[in-house]
């Protein structure tokens, strides 16, 4: 529809005199890019996103690894047959192993040979000792069926009945300690994650306040031409959301690169002692779908949080002015 204006010289259709109009620049941002400490904001957000992604994924890796540790350990139990005066320890070991094999839910009962038991003591007692004279206990390692769980209490009663000098250890104390440790590690990572996001929010708040102060004249002009507070806040939100997205993608991308590199190095160092410890703690540093999803969600969340915060700060400032 053609709208006629009093300044139209010939009162003709506006499209008739529109030649060259396509050369007119479209729409510049109302909040100029150089009026916001853009580079600093992007760098701060990138670093914070990187650290938050690190904290979140360390929590995920430790939580996943702890589930593995616990399920591995829960699938095993140990029978210790102690040497007792007047009893044939070799016969007791065979009796105990046979009793265990008969129990439903026990997949395997492997007897540790005397030499294997002695090998376990070597780190403490050193090489070159004749351990045959020492009353060393004998071990039977049980593999338990994860599907068809064995009744540990019944198993213990049965073992005591057939071999009174045997003790069953289902590792529950160790499993509980591992669980506590994993929960503490996850809670610490979660706390670090929240603190990082809080620090980022403070940084964005300060940058928004500075941007509003720098652009005071623009805000005044926008008010004068009839802009509502929500319109002005939206302009700042758009600017900060773009900065937030850029920083979040840089930080998130950095975190992905970090984990890919860590996975590569972990594979190379797997055979070393330290590598084994790291793998036991964090797994193989493989992010998996949940890790990548967490970084993607975190990056989107950081951009949205940056935009929302800047909008909130500007609106609050304008309402106070009003």
């Amino acid at each position, binding site marked *: 529809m053609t709208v006629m204006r009093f*300044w139209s010289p010939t009162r003709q259709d506006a499209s008739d*005199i529109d030649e060259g109009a396509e050369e*007119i620049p479209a729409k*510049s941002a*109302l909040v*100029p890019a150089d009026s916001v400490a853009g580079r600093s904001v992007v760098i701060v957000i990138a670093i914070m996103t990187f650290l938050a992604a690190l904290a979140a994924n360390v929590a995920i890796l430790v939580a996943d690894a702890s589930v593995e540790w616990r399920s591995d350990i829960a699938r095993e139990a140990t029978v210790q047959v102690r040497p007792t005066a007047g009893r044939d320890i070799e016969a007791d070991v065979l009796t105990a192993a046979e009793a265990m094999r008969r129990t439903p839910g026990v997949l395997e009962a492997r007897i540790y040979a005397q030499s294997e038991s002695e090998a376990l003591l070597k780190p403490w007692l050193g090489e070159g000792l004749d351990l045959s004279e020492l009353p060393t206990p004998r071990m039977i390692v049980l593999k338990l069926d994860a599907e068809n769980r064995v009744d540990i209490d019944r198993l213990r009663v049965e073992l005591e009945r057939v071999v009174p000098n045997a003790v069953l250890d289902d590792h529950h104390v160790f499993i509980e300690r591992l669980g506590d440790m994993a929960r503490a590690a996850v809670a610490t990572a979660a706390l670090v994650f929240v603190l990082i996001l809080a620090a980022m929010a403070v940084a964005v708040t300060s940058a928004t306040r500075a941007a509003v102060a720098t652009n005071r004249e623009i805000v005044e002009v926008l008010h*004068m031409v009839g802009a509502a*507070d929500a319109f002005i806040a939206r302009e700042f939100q758009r600017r900060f959301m773009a900065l937030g997205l850029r920083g979040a993608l840089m930080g998130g991308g950095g975190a992905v690169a970090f984990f890919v590199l860590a996975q590569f190095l972990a594979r190379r160092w797997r055979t070393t002692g330290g590598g084994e410890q790291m793998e036991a703690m964090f797994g193989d540093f493989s992010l998996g779908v949940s890790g990548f999803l967490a970084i993607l969600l975190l990056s989107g969340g950081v951009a949205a949080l940056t935009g929302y915060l800047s909008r909130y700060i500007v609106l609050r400032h*304008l309402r106070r002015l009003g």
Partner: protein
Amino acid sequence: MLTFENVGLRYGVGAETLRDINFHVAPRSFQFLTGPSGAGKTSLMRLIIMTLRPTRGLINIFGKDTAALSNEDVAETRRGIGVVFQDFRLLDHLTVYENVALPLRVLGREEWSYRGEVIELLRWVGLGERAHAVPTILSGGEKQRAAIARALISQPKLLLADEPTGNVDPTLARRILRLFIELHKSGTAVIIATHDLTLMDQYEEARRLVLADGRLHIFE
């Protein structure tokens, strides 16, 4: 359209800058607001555009009591008022075209829908060739015309101009006045704050509002 009833304005604890101001601006009317420097012309304009609140009295714009307006209502009311500032208040990071289009952009209109209107108006004020320029490279007169175009683009019901010919030569001043008269004839009420007696003499049909010693004297 615009009514002041017993309006007084005081800055801080000093004497009143404006005292017992009573006047009414009818639709399609034209008035010059004049008076010596420091008489309160700019303060009166700021009361009209609601960047100042009166210490006492009632201001009614477009049928609304300004004291009762929310922030959103103030924005809505301002959309019916075009303002030409003495210092232009153009945004330096926007082109002339973008500055003039600003009130339409604020209304949420798409760029393609107002492009023709803005270009027409720029030609009408003689800035057709300067659409791409940023205000920092414009002359004083060009800035003045860009500021006027921005005030006109949304065809406001009321136009306020603070010393619109203060920075231009007499020829351009006459041209700018003709522009305001044209706007007035198209149905807009106009208030021009000026010291320029020559300018006022060129349009004798206009009402004169004279501020002196904080009081307003009206000459029909």
